[in-house]
């Protein structure tokens, strides 16, 4: 048995076209689909290059504070209260808060802030595409904001934002950050005024701003999706590739030679199943490993995740092994390779239904249900659910489906395999 399996590996290793199809092609497709169709995948994210933005500060905070102090005195407020308001104003200086937003650690990897002395130099830098856009903090910006807060005047404070192009990703991000800042600042100051500054505004906003998690689902990146999609699809094509070799063995009378040696037909059939299983397992392990190394697909996943991935990969490999043995049986029994060829050409249909190219639930939920009854579809959904944080027990029903398919394939393969001679 080991000798037969070893021979299958040896002959496969000498076939450049098969190796290309089973190992190289999935990588190429993962790269192409991952980059090209990344935005179509739920929760997908493309990597963003770091970009530069500019800040032009035209205001003088000391002057603004003096002007505010003068205004407060003119309001005939008690001296203590005026001093308190002045101290509070310094704490909620909008220009300082804006700077804090841009210097936040989470934005550090995305954007780098450059200071400019005036609008002209910022414009020049943007023209040279050194920066994606810039924000101008105009003269008396903080003063105007304070007046609208403390003296309840209509705000004359305006932040000016200039971006290279609104459609660019960097432009969208910059607009989003500034909008978030304005919203957050308005919320904080409103709460502070309503509670006379007693509320812990920062904590409150965090609570308000938190996105509630309604399920355990984590987003799947395009590379994760296509690593699984291409992996299960190309693994499925392993079965007809190996079964074709079995038929060639019969055509070239090699199978007859093996049978003459006293090798039991079922030993031969089992060797095909073991070869199919091992080839698929190795193929998927290589694919996952290299995809993680090159595209960072499963980077940072814990040991338990890999164990569960191992279970699914093992079962799927066994399924491909059993399909290999079934196709081998059919081709040897029917004395032609038509079934194997048909299955081979049907792999892409299975791949589509199973969601290898795109999530089919986008088209119809019924299609998704059908897809989950295909060998690759059931396995792919299991992988994706596992990656979204589901427990293995939760994907067990789909895995039981795979076990059912394995049993059916093996039983049919054994029943139809030529028992003693070649008829």
């Amino acid at each position, binding site marked *: 048995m080991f000798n037969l399996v070893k021979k299958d590996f*040896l*002959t496969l290793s*000498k076939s450049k076209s098969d190796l290309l199809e089973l190992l190289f092609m999935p990588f190429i497709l993962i790269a192409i689909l991952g980059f090209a169709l990344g935005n179509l995948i739920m929760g997908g994210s493309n990597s963003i290059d770091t970009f530069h933005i500019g800040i032009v500060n035209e205001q003088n905070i000391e002057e603004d504070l003096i002007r505010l102090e003068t205004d407060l005195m003119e309001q005939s407020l008690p001296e203590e209260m005026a001093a308190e308001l002045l101290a509070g104003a310094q704490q909620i200086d909008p220009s300082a808060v804006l700077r804090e937003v841009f210097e936040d650690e989470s934005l550090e990897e995305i954007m780098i802030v450059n200071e400019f002395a005036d609008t002209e130099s910022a414009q020049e830098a943007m023209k040279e595409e050194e920066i994606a856009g810039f924000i101008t903090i105009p003269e008396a910006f903080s003063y105007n904001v304070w007046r609208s807060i403390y003296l309840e005047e209509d705000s004359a404070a305006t932040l000016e934002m200039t971006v290279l192009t609104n459609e660019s990703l960097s432009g969208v991000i910059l607009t989003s950050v500034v909008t978030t800042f304005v919203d957050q600042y308005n919320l904080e100051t409103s709460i502070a005024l309503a509670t006379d500054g007693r509320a812990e505004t920062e904590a409150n906003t965090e609570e308000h701003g938190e996105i509630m998690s309604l399920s355990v689902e984590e987003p799947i990146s395009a590379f994760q999706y296509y690593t699984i999609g291409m992996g299960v699809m190309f693994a499925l094509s392993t079965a007809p590739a190996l079964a074709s070799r079995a038929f060639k063995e019969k055509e*070239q*009378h090699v199978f007859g*030679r093996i049978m003459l*040696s*006293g090798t039991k037909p079922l030993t031969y059939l089992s060797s095909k199943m073991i070869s199919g299983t091992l080839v698929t397992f190795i193929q998927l392990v290589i694919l996952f490993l290299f995809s993680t190394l090159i595209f960072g697909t499963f980077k940072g996943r814990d040991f338990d995740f890999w164990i569960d991935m191992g279970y699914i990969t093992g079962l799927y490999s066994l399924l491909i092994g059993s399909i290999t043995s079934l196709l081998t049986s059919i081709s040897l029994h029917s004395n032609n390779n038509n079934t194997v060829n048909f299955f081979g050409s049907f792999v892409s249909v299975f791949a589509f239904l199973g969601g290898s190219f795109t999530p089919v639930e986008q088209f119809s939920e019924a299609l998704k249900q059908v897809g989950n009854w295909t060998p690759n579809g059931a396995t792919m959904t299991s992988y994706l659910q596992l990656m979204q944080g589901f427990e293995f027990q939760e994907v067990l029903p789909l895995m039981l489906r795979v076990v059912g398919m394995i049993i059916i394939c093996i039983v049919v393969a054994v029943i139809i395999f030529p028992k*003693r001679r070649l008829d």
Partner: protein
Amino acid sequence: MIEVKNLGKNFKKKIAVDDVSMYLDEGESVGLLGPNGAGKSTTISMISTLLPPTKGTVKYNGKNVLKEPEELRPILGVVPQEIALYEELSAYENMSFFGKVYGISGKKLEDKIQETLDLVGLKERQKDAVETYSGGMKRRINIAVALMHDPEILIMDEPTVGIDPQSRNYILEMVRKLNRERGLTVLYTSHYMEEVEKLCDRVYIMDHGQIIASGTKEELKSILSNEETIQIQVEETKSEFRDLLSSQEGVNQVLEDEAGYNLIVSKGEQLLGEIFDHAKQANIKIIGIHVKTPTLEDVFLHLTGRKLRD
């Protein structure tokens, strides 16, 4: 040793082999001679238990091997007409694989591989992929694989088809050596009369799925003991000349080929003068004439009216 009785095989409505009976004694070399499509390969596939017959029995030392193939298979070495090898693998890898399939391992396997490679003259090329070999070398390694487990009976199906004369002679010498020196029983099928004549003690002649004659070479040739063959080489064949030869008294059969005519005539007939007269009458230029004793080819011609390679 092996006894075949009333063996028959039908493929749907077509009768491929019909009522074939034959036997093989230990140590002898037996030829199965017949043209392409005569049913030779189907017959040996049934004898080697790879194809179930429609009717008949194959017995090895009295046991029906169709029911108990495991009795015969271990002592059988089969060389199929096709190159039954993994051509992408080297000769060494093929021999190692088939040796292990027969349960040979370790030093015994290594020794057997080298000994067999030596026998077929491919020791130097053992690490090269079979697909890089010439046709003759592929045929030799095809035989070598069948010898890996030291079989007692070697069944060879047209082992020299499509190869150069040098490789062909090498294979014929090798088979003769295996039979004479190692006592290997050989069943050799071919449509090359001269191969069977050179190698085999006894011959079965097959045509249209049936054995039409059998015996030692001498016994078969004695069918034509009262006849001899006159080969006439001509510049150009003409139907008029053929008709004149056919109507000539003493000429039993006329066969035309690309080189000229073969006449089977009654022994002792003096017909050369008449042949030249007919040639002159038909305006034919004779470039050669040869009177020879009968060959197996002539026997086949006599029995079927066709040449072996028709």
